[in-house]
């Protein structure tokens, strides 16, 4: 009997159903308005805390630059936003508070960002670092710098500085960004030191200091004498390396203050100008069809890379600096991945004389020759 009642109730409910497309069914409200135009507020969500000495702190500083550039805008920020449906919830809260421009700043926020964009056609949702595949909605986009370019330059400094010929790389997940960086670092080091090798260890977390400490300890044990990383929080690895009297190449932020002896150089973010330009474009009503309404990438070839080189440490001599300057000039027309590039098995992946474009580089899913480590099969 109960089953029958339940069945009847379900049948009744079925008539009140609509497909759960994860937000791709646009709601009726504001379908015709210009996304982002005249927004009173702008929202930023971060996957970690806004003072992590790393990725999220850099993004937070970018949001504060927007606050300064647009004093009339209310800037809403939310930290520790997980990479699941909670992110959509927080973005919706921001939209409810008047934000028609939202920045989802973590790689894994893309699904939620696209869902929010589909639900709110009048809101510009931009995601930092991932790639939209297929058609781009008229109110969404991704943006990023070509991080592997400054990382390639830092690799030169590492290749010149190492005495053991072993470099270490502590990274979070094997995603295209990290793979590109590890490859570029090794290629940069190889360009000045052909026999150098890079040992890569993943922690499977954007920030787990204890795992990072263990990874650094093991790399040092292997005789690595320059360590760099791709994590959101960076202090642990830098401190471990400095304590061991070895050298550090920074990432996300200038950490020379906690590694006064071993700091070589690094790469750090300057998001302010790019964030501000995206906000300006959206406020003016020109987002749809603009360069930001797609997968926007900017590097040495196309303009101002938001990822810039950090200051040099005392261990980097004049010779290395001039080598890096020369390489930087070359990147304006070339690429860290200018052929020939071989993978770990020695197979040529980028033929001699070819300079791959940014999109091709972001799809690299192999380690280059000289990287010690292996990727999960998928």
């Amino acid at each position, binding site marked *: 009997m109960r089953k029958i009642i339940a069945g009847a109730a379900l049948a009744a409910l079925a008539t009140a159903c609509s497909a759960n497309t994860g937000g791709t069914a646009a709601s009726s409200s504001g379908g015709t308005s210009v996304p982002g135009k005249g927004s009173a507020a702008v929202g930023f969500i971060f996957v970690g*805390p806004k*003072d*992590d*000495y*790393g990725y999220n*702190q850099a993004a937070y500083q970018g949001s504060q630059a927007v606050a300064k550039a647009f004093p009339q805008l209310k800037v809403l920020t939310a930290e*520790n936003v997980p990479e699941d449906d909670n992110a959509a919830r927080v973005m919706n809260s921001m939209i409810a508070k008047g934000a028609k421009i939202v920045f989802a700043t973590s790689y894994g926020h893309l699904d939620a960002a696209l869902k929010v964009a589909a639900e709110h056609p009048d809101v510009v949702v931009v995601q930092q670092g991932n790639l939209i595949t297929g058609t781009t909605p008229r109110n969404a986009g991704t943006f990023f710098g070509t991080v592997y370019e400054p990382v390639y330059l830092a690799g030169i400094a590492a290749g010149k500085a190492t005495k053991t010929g072993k470099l*270490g790389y502590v990274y979070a997940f094997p995603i295209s960004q990290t793979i590109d960086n590890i490859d570029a670092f090794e290629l940069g080091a190889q360009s000045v030191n052909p026999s150098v090798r890079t*040992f*890569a*260890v*993943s*922690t*499977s977390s954007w*920030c*787990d*200091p*204890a*795992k*990072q*400490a*263990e*990874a650094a*300890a*093991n*790399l040092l*044990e*292997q005789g690595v004498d320059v360590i760099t990383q791709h994590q959101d*929080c960076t*202090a*642990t690895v830098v*401190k*471990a390396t400095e*304590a061991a009297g070895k050298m550090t190449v920074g990432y996300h932020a200038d950490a020379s*203050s*906690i590694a006064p002896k071993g700091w070589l150089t690094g790469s750090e973010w300057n998001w302010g100008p790019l964030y501000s330009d995206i906000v300006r474009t959206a406020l003016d009503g020109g987002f749809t069809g603009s360069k930001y309404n797609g997968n926007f990438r900017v590097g040495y070839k196309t303009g101002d890379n938001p990822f810039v080189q950090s200051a040099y440490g005392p261990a980097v001599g004049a010779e290395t600096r001039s080598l890096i300057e020369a390489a930087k000039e070359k990147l304006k027309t070339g690429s860290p991945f200018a052929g020939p590039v071989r993978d770990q098995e020695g197979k040529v992946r980028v033929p001699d004389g070819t300079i791959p474009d940014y999109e091709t580089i972001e799809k690299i899913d192999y380690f280059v020759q000289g990287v*010690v*480590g*292996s*990727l*999960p099969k998928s």
Partner: protein
Amino acid sequence: MLVVDILTGGVRGGTAIMFAALGETLAERAGVVNLGTEGCMLVGALGGYAVAAETGNPWLGLLAGALAGAALGLVHAVAVVWRRADQFATGLTLMFLGLGLTSLFGAAYVGKAAPGFDPVPLPLLGDIPIAGEILFRHDPVTYLTFVVAPLLWFTLNRTKAGLLVRAAGERADVLHVHGHSADLVRTAAVTAGAALAGLGGAQLSTAYAHAWFEGMTAGRGFIAVALVIFAAWRPLWVMAGSYLFGAALAVAPALQARGHALNQFALDALPFVITLVFLAVLGRRTLRAAPEELRRVFAR
């Protein structure tokens, strides 16, 4: 050498777990389970790091970590011992309290520099081949466990205080007859145990990771609770078990640094699976070692 590296990593990573598990041993020997060990470690990790950063003295940080853990442990004791609240529910509540408190007060210390403990190889002992490398080239807080674990064993088995704790755990009624309050003894044991968990947290932030980060204990408090059962409530077994669990966590980075691919999650599950298998195989025998008052909780 791979095995040496893994064992060294086991000591490095097992120390924080050991502090917490020793503390939980003390509480459970008195008859109280503290599932909030995770929360106590968290407040200890933040307390330790923050005070080290503010005072410039990591030893003061360590003390603060212990006090912070003890404070949260006292909350558990008051609720469970004096108010007879359910210990599992209260323990989990404590975890959320710890998460919230450290999130609120810890934001200012993420990414902030603080002095910490660096490895100090012990003279002579550190030069012993293999064993020296594994055991005697760590930070001073790690060496502290070499003292604390035997000390806890001694206290529990050879002192009057230890007798009271064991009595509270085994035969609370007998304690009453002799004019002692089992409630007071349990409160003291839970609080002191939580102080040890706080120390473990502080070791994590000031000696192992040299950083404070929200949720950085990442389940180590729960590993510690599991470990106590695995070790059958004996401090010295806890010590060995901590290194075993620590080593399981150290396998993945050690192999990766040598270029081997590894799905580390299979390994991450290892400590828990080992404990479960251990319980399944030696269940009844292990549980016979459980303090009598606990058995009401653990094996009705």
